[in-house]
């Protein structure tokens, strides 16, 4: 669907004028210059709901930069990855795009993205220190900045305060052992037809969140091999699959859960690991009587965690500039504008996406929200996933293998050995490329 723009009428007028000029000049060339009425045209690809809402932020940008006009293409999230790669092959990438954080390494590896170090260093409006450290790090690949975090997310615990209080749990559970005890009590109270926690077995983010929480690096040797036999990984996976084995979590895939919010309201489960997008959903969809009976908390930490705080996995979306863009300067203006704390606070008000800039968190709408503050606390202690293009393939294997363990068809240790083997095989090409790279420039000790 094409966005509705207030200036449509005036644009038509401009095009008419241009058409008149075109009579005199070479048709193609003149029209290319006239598409935006003599203004520089920037193409921005934005995903899903953000693609819809970002258009409300743009009139202000165009007012400040009368020489620029931004065309937004809204792309459904599930199609975006394929479309970006196809655009790269077809040399039709946009100037600026919103990228899911896990796609940055891939697009950087194929050389689609412009390095932004110079622009960041020059910028007066934007400094790396003002972003959540894990989130900023997600856009830095082999020492070069390729992406500016736009909004952030991380997964943490959503829970029913009333049910946890009734079960005599620590509110909220702070350590894994306290968490586990709490879940056992919840299950005992719920009986055979209820559960302590919902973890859809086909979602990889919850087990990966637990792995990272336990300090697992996921991959080792600079992303050359899997690290699933690491004791920290084993501990997290053992904790995870045991929740199903002990009946604390139902063995269910996400598309079969039905109405998650209704089931949460009914108390079918009392805890859920999810991201900031569910804050709005829970607020809208839970019955008013429960409005005060749910809360969010950082993921409980392993019992021996340093400082008693667990580690989160930071995700979200970043803004990137494509290398093939002929409007690098203007594209950076747009990225800088969308990263301003004021725009980020507005964006939060419009869609509920958590700002990547810490300054934007001083906005009263965020600072006064207990549930959002849990995210802020977790984001201070969050790391980026290993920046390896093959990561999605590897974590897909993770849930396939853990499904087998949950079903009891395979032992955990064997599954971890298999996972490492899967990961090592998937990373074989990467190892070959890295070795070739190293052989080609042996003298330089670059990044």
């Amino acid at each position, binding site marked *: 669907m094409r966005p509705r723009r207030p200036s449509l009428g005036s644009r038509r007028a401009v095009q008419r004028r241009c058409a008149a000029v075109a009579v005199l000049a070479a048709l193609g060339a003149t029209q290319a210059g006239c598409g935006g009425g003599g203004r520089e045209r920037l193409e921005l690809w934005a995903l899903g709901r953000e693609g819809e809402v970002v258009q409300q932020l743009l009139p202000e940008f165009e007012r400040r930069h009368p020489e620029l006009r931004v065309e937004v293409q809204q792309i459904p999230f599930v199609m975006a990855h394929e479309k970006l790669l196809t655009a790269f092959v077809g040399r039709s990438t946009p100037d600026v795009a919103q990228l899911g954080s896990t796609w940055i390494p891939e697009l950087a*590896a*194929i*050389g689609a993205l412009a390095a932004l170090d110079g622009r960041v260093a020059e910028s007066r409006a934007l400094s790396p220190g003002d972003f959540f450290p894990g989130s900023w790090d997600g856009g830095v690949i082999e020492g070069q900045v390729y992406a500016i975090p736009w909004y952030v997310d991380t997964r943490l615990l959503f829970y029913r305060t009333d049910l946890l209080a009734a079960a005599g749990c620590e509110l909220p559970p702070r350590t894994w052992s306290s968490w586990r005890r709490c879940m056992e009590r919840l299950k005992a109270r719920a009986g055979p037809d209820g559960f302590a926690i919902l973890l859809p077995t*086909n979602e990889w983010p919850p087990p990966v969140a637990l792995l990272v929480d336990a300090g697992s690096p996921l991959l080792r040797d600079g992303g050359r091999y899997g690290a699933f036999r690491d004791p920290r990984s084993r501990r997290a996976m053992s904790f995870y699959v045991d929740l199903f084995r002990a009946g604390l979590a139902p063995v269910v*895939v996400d*598309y079969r859960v039905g109405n998650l919010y209704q089931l949460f309201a009914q108390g079918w489960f009392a805890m859920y690991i999810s991201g900031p997008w569910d804050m709005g959903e829970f607020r809208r969809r839970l019955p008013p009587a429960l409005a005060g009976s749910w809360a969010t908390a950082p993921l409980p930490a392993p019992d021996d965690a340093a400082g008693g705080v667990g580690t989160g996995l930071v995700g979200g979306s970043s803004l990137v500039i494509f290398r093939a863009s002929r409007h690098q300067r203007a594209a950076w203006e747009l990225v800088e504008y969308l990263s301003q704390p004021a725009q980020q606070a507005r964006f939060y008000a419009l869609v509920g996406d958590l700002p990547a800039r810490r300054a934007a968190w001083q906005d009263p709408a965020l600072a006064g929200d207990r549930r959002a503050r849990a995210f802020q606390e977790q984001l201070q202690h969050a790391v980026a996933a290993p920046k390896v293009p093959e990561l999605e393939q590897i974590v897909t294997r993770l849930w396939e293998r853990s499904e087998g363990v949950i*079903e009891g068809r395979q032992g955990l240790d064997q599954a971890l050995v298999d996972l490492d083997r899967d990961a090592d095989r998937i990373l074989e090409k990467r190892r070959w490329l890295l070795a070739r790279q190293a052989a080609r420039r042996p003298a330089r000790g670059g990044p």
Partner: protein
Amino acid sequence: MSGDRAAAAAAGARGAAARRGVPAEARAALWLLAPGLAVIGVFFLLPAAAALLLSLTDFDIYALADLGNLRFVGLGNYRRLLADPIFWTALRNTFYFAFVGGPLSVLVSLVAALLLDSRLARWRGLFRTVFFAPVVTTLVAVAVVWRYLYHPRFGLLNRFLGWVGLPAIDWLGDPRWAMPAIILLAVWKNFGYNMIVFLAGLQNVPATLYEAARIDGAGWWRQLRHITLPMLAPTFLFVAVITMIGYFQLFTEPYVMTRGEGGPVNSTLSVVLLMYKQGFRFWNMGYGAAVAFVLFVVIVCVTALQLLLRRRGGERA
């Protein structure tokens, strides 16, 4: 382009043959066929050959960026494929679907066609339309409705089971029931097409044969066995071969019913779905092409087997 050249070369060779005494008619036929052959060459043979070459390389996301990152791996992809348990799971699932769903679909089509062709049937036009409607309905829309039908807690199918005192089935969540659920959906979705083909076949059976049989005192069953089925044999072969080829390419049903995963526990992962995941989600084009060629070989073998059985059967009759 080389397809064009090949076609031209073929035409040239035949031209030489013509001068040695091939009738002018045959030469004219060749010229008439040439455009068609050229199109097949350029749009089918050439891409297929390219895919075969692709399957011998490790073409992936890195090669997309720089062809210098492409490695020729010989039969490496095929070796890896045959050692991958997920491929065998996918192959087993595909065989399960084709050998249970395929015959079931043909049988349902045949029964529906016989019912509609029966002299007792009323409102034939209406039923024909109703039975054919699923074929022309978008599968994605159908899948949304069927996901509701299959819902373990609120689904209509489990409601029915409850009424007759059977326990509820976790249709799409239980690895044992997910494939039967997909088969049920596929049969319902597709039987209308074969039904129309069978109906056309039935209308070609001369009424005089039935008349003669009735005079000889043959009942309904004997007429079916000795007139209808033998007369339908060519139709039957066509339907069976096309259905099996189609069923081996199972993709859309599990793709839309399980959100592109082929779960639970890969129990509905088909070979084509595996190819799609490898090729377009992870961009392992070389590996994906190898999957495609293995499936091609499987389909050729199964079709050859069908034709062979049919010929044997024909000799015996």
